[in-house]
């Protein structure tokens, strides 16, 4: 018998499927992973420090760059925190606009994430393009409302930057009509694929207890069997007005995360339909007019104090913590980034599986390095 040696491979920082500049120090025995250490920090951009130097209004623009796949939800969370701090009320219509944009953002993120995940699994490009086609349609909607496709910069304190016109409502409705077809097609294309089942079932299992002790959130913890969703656990904005379900997995493997994301897109579709039906028609109430002028001139000075708000981002629980000392910039600004915290469980998910599984498991966590490194 020949003597064998463990091999240490550095997957990344330059690697096609690490979702950005991210490094995985994998110790492998042949093709089996013995230990895996995530190394990050290559994309650090002083986000939290910038948030303390820039004014509150300016900081909205950099929250877009946190998780650049769902800028709307990032802005939503940040604006909610500042509103809580300054005691700003949000008009009814503005809340609906925010929910619509957030749910569109969730669909956008999941469609792209599933495409990327299957790309990591080796289905060359087709599924990615399939997801990206939906993403493109949503980005067109974002462009109509905010003027930008990815970095929307749309939410403001007390509402949104612009009102949504009947044309845009029509555009969203058109998208919603075609969407169930996409989900069904995607499911038919991939769900019964023998190779996909073989590669994703019982791979990267994260048991319930371990998931809770790592405090992972989002689809990862739901796939492990814990129905934890901020939209239900601590309803923010107007989420308590809609009826929707939280999909929960049973095994906590990669396949469950895939199914949970599919189902979440369906539930977002349900929320969007309800929100469009209930959307109040009072035009002009897309922003709290009393604060519109103040926020435009960057003159927003919340009273001294602190506030923490959390929203359900597609990646998990996204929290903002802001301390104000009465000035026009935040005194302290911190973020609970779901991607970073979900990433900590990676070693336990990967140990014992093959090298080829690492990228699949990483893809199933769905990280964005902009949010991990901030």
């Amino acid at each position, binding site marked *: 018998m020949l003597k064998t040696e463990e091999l240490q491979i550095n997957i990344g920082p330059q690697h096609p499927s690490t979702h950005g500049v991210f490094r995985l120090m994998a110790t492998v025995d042949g093709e089996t992973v013995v230990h895996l250490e995530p190394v990050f920090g290559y994309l650090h951009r002083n986000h939290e420090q910038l948030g303390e130097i820039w004014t509150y209004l300016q900081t909205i623009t950099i929250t877009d760059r946190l998780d650049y796949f769902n800028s709307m939800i990032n802005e939503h969370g940040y604006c909610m925190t500042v509103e809580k701090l300054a005691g700003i009320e949000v008009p009814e219509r503005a809340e609906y606009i925010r929910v619509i944009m957030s749910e569109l953002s969730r669909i956008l993120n999941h469609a792209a994430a599933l495409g990327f995940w299957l790309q990591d699994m080796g289905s060359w490009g087709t599924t990615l393009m399939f997801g990206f086609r939906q993403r493109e349609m949503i980005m067109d909607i974002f462009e109509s409302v905010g003027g930008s496709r990815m970095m929307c910069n749309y939410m403001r304190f007390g509402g949104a930057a612009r009102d949504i016109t009947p044309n845009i409502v029509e555009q969203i409705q058109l998208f919603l009509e075609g969407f169930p077809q996409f989900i069904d097609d995607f499911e038919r294309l991939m769900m019964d694929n023998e*190779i996909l089942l073989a590669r994703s079932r019982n791979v990267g299992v994260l048991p319930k207890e371990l998931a809770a002790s790592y405090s992972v959130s989002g689809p990862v913890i739901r796939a492990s069997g814990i129905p934890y969703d901020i939209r239900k656990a601590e309803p923010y904005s107007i989420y308590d007005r809609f009826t929707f379900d939280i999909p929960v997995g049973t095994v906590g493997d990669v396949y469950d995360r895939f199914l949970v994301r599919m189902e979440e897109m369906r539930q977002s579709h349900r929320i969007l339909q309800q929100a469009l039906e209930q959307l109040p028609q009072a035009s002009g109430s897309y922003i709290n007019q009393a604060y519109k002028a103040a926020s435009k001139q960057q003159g927003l000075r919340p009273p001294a104090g602190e506030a923490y708000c959390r929203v359900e981002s597609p990646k998990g629980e996204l929290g903002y913590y802001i301390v104000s000392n009465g000035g026009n910039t935040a005194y302290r600004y911190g973020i609970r980034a779901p991607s970073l915290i979900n990433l900590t469980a990676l070693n336990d998910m990967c140990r014992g599986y093959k090298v080829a599984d690492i*990228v699949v498991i990483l893809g199933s966590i769905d990280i964005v390095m902009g949010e991990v490194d901030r």
Partner: protein
Amino acid sequence: MRAMWEFFFGVGWFATLLSYITITTAILISGSLIMMLLTWIERRGLAYMQDRKGPNRVGPFGLLQPVAEAIKTITKEDITPTEADRWVHFLAPVVILASTVAAFAVIPWGNLIPVDINVGVLYIVAISAVHTVGILMAGWASNNKFALLGGMRGVAQAISYEIPQVISLVAIVMLVGSMSVVDVIQHQMDPYGNILSWHIFTPVGLLAFVVFWIASLAEGERPPFDNPEAESELVAGYMTEYGGMKFAVLFLANYLTNFAICAVTAGVFLGGGNGPGSDIPILGTLLSVIYFLAKSLGLFFVMVWIRGVVPRLRTDELMHFAWKFLLPLALVNIFSTSLWIAITRWGAEQGMGVAEALGEPGSIARLAVAWLVTGVINVVAFFVVARINATRGITTYQATPTAV
């Protein structure tokens, strides 16, 4: 070809030499041209499946894109990693390309036959195995962990998949009674242009085709078996440390292997250049080349199609698939082939195809019995083996998310 040069020079050995040089040059040039066409088909085909445009700027429909890329790769700097084994690193692409091109020596282009050796099928299998050595050389010499893993995967995969590949060819060799590729194609010839005489239209040939085609996909490192170069896992596998012209050579060898697979499959199972009118003296040769290219490129399009829709297998699953699925099927196929031979040729001469059977009274019934028996055996074997290996059939696993 030899006769033509003898007509000009009259000297026997000189004419032979010239004829071989001509044939080799023709193979090399047509190989490169075919490779260009293949990359174009692959990129445009994939783009079409993925709602993209694909390369469409250089030349008409982007047909000259491969030329532009060839110029780019040739003019690039040739980099050898400092810690690499210089000579092995340099020789690996040469070995891979040489073994691939050598396989083309016995592949008939319709009625144009480069060399007809009596163990042609064995030669193809043997020479394509040399390819494996090149992969291991490339992976080892690069002194890169990704390259090493890719090389190891490549070797393990090639060795495993050669076995079902060869055993599925054994069935055809038994059927034909000869290892010559030309004889295999002749066996599928029908004077009435009846395509039912192709091997794929018998139960035995169909199963052999399925096994051979899947094993060949693995042999040619095509998705879903592209593990040695698995882009999303190993960057580029054993090709990671190659750049410029060396990479272009590896790339060329890759596509030539794919084309060789398609050509062999077309020859062995789809009748090569056989088709309506392929036996007319001069026009028939042209027609047969067209038929051959149409069949081979059609098969290549199937490869592209598979690449467009199927995710990659993991290395251990890949091994299981070769040993637990393909190998039993190939062995069962040998068994049913011997039954087929025993039933159709009981007391008859070797080499009785459909045409002869049609002319002989009582043979139709014999053929029908052979069809029935082998068909039932093969279909049952396929479903039994598939059932044993199915992951979908596992009932203990229930992962359907429930709404709470």
